[in-house]
């Protein structure tokens, strides 16, 4: 069954058209990878799905679990199960990480009509997820992303994802800035989340990541739309030939 359906999506920032008739369907349990040159619109796509106000959708549709995503606020999208691990995570000075995650978790539980987590259960869950992704207690005590290295920020994004257990995960260049060990840890973190009903959209520049997280489909995105789709071998071909033939 389709989890996410994007139909003929056009979007812009200011006067600039970035997404041009972008279409993609992701079924439950699938992993899709998108590769594409700098500036082709990959992060724009992520932000449009998550509902960033700077991006204006001029036409097209997005459905998630059959719901019209474009009519939902960003927090409704998140609570319905969409998670975006940002390419450039934002720093929130003065906002403690633990409080932030507790607020996020309770918002989701409330949205789903479930009771909030008590303090003990929350801490336990937080610690389990943190340990698995190499997030230290010290990092949890700091304000969200403040002063974290590039790689640490990426780990934090993956950790938040594991903690909030969304149904659809967009990973926007989660491998950029990660050292080899961290890449393995984070990839394992993603792989253990694989479930028949959970899907992933993985944006990357490097075929190497797809050795760790094996995609069902690979799409090549150029100038705001998908120009070719295939299986994981497409990434290998791309590694060899580059984007020249698509331009």
């Amino acid at each position, binding site marked *: 069954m389709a989890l996410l359906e994007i139909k003929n999506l056009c979007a812009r920032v200011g006067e600039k058209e970035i997404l041009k008739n972008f279409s993609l369907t992701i079924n439950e349990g699938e992993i899709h990878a998108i590769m594409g040159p700098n500036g082709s619109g990959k992060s724009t796509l992520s932000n449009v799905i998550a*509902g960033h106000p700077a991006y204006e959708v001029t036409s097209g549709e997005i459905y998630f679990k059959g719901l019209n995503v474009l009519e939902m606020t960003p927090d409704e999208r998140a609570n319905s199960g969409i998670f975006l691990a940002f390419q450039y995570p*934002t720093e929130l000075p*003065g906002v403690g990480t633990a409080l932030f995650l507790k607020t*996020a978790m309770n918002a989701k539980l409330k949205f789903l009509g479930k009771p909030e987590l008590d303090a003990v259960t929350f801490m336990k869950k937080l610690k389990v997820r943190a340990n698995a992704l190499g997030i230290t207690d010290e990092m949890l005590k700091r304000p969200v992303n403040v002063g974290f290295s590039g790689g640490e920020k990426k780990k934090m994004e993956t950790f938040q994802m594991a903690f909030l257990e969304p149904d659809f995960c967009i990973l926007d260049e989660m491998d950029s800035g990660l050292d080899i060990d961290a890449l393995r840890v984070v990839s394992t973190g993603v792989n253990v989340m694989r479930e028949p009903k959970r899907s992933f959209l993985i944006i990357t520049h490097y075929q190497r990541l797809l050795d760790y997280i094996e995609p069902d489909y690979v799409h090549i995105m150029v100038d705001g739309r998908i120009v070719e789709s295939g299986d994981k071998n497409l990434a290998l071909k791309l590694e060899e030939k580059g984007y020249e033939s698509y331009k």
Partner: protein
Amino acid sequence: MKAINNLCLMGMNGVLADTPLKEGVNEIIVPENTLFEAKILHIFSDISLKILLVGDRSKCDVKIVYLCNKNNNYNINIEVIHEHKNTLSNHQIKGVLTDNAKMVLNGVIRMPKDSQKCEGFLNHRGVLLSENASVKVTPELEIFADDVKCSHGSAIGALDENQLFYLLARGIDKITAQKILLKAYLSDLLPDVWDEYIDDWMAKNVSTHV
């Protein structure tokens, strides 16, 4: 609710005087070796401070948080005079405005000819929650001494769109997200005892249409 405040004169041996802020100009004379400390939460009145640093190594450290809503129109007037050499002044001011509120901040730092080795700083940040709210800042540095450090800074704007979006993208609703960011922004100037006032103000004044 009245503006609450806490003015405190600290000498080397502890508190010298603890005075409430009054209407009109509050003139504070800071003698030798003394720190004047003020933490002011400004909700419903004007504030005028005239601080005279008259003794060797006298200092002042003033933190002001202001919250303005509706059609309120307030002034904060600060005048610091470094009458003696080796004196230090530091003013940190942060505020939040909504509806049609207007704030005028006049900050003057004076360093006469003999006030060598003085340092004077005044920093302001204002967050606007509505397009109709505004802050006007008129900084004035009147410096006649040459061996001094002095600066005046001000930044005014809405909450950061990307920070707000980050919270929303994690499922936190817009009102809660704004409150989290405002509290974080004020936190370095905010003694815990004011939490209740701030929470109360935010509950009444933070809305979804920003």
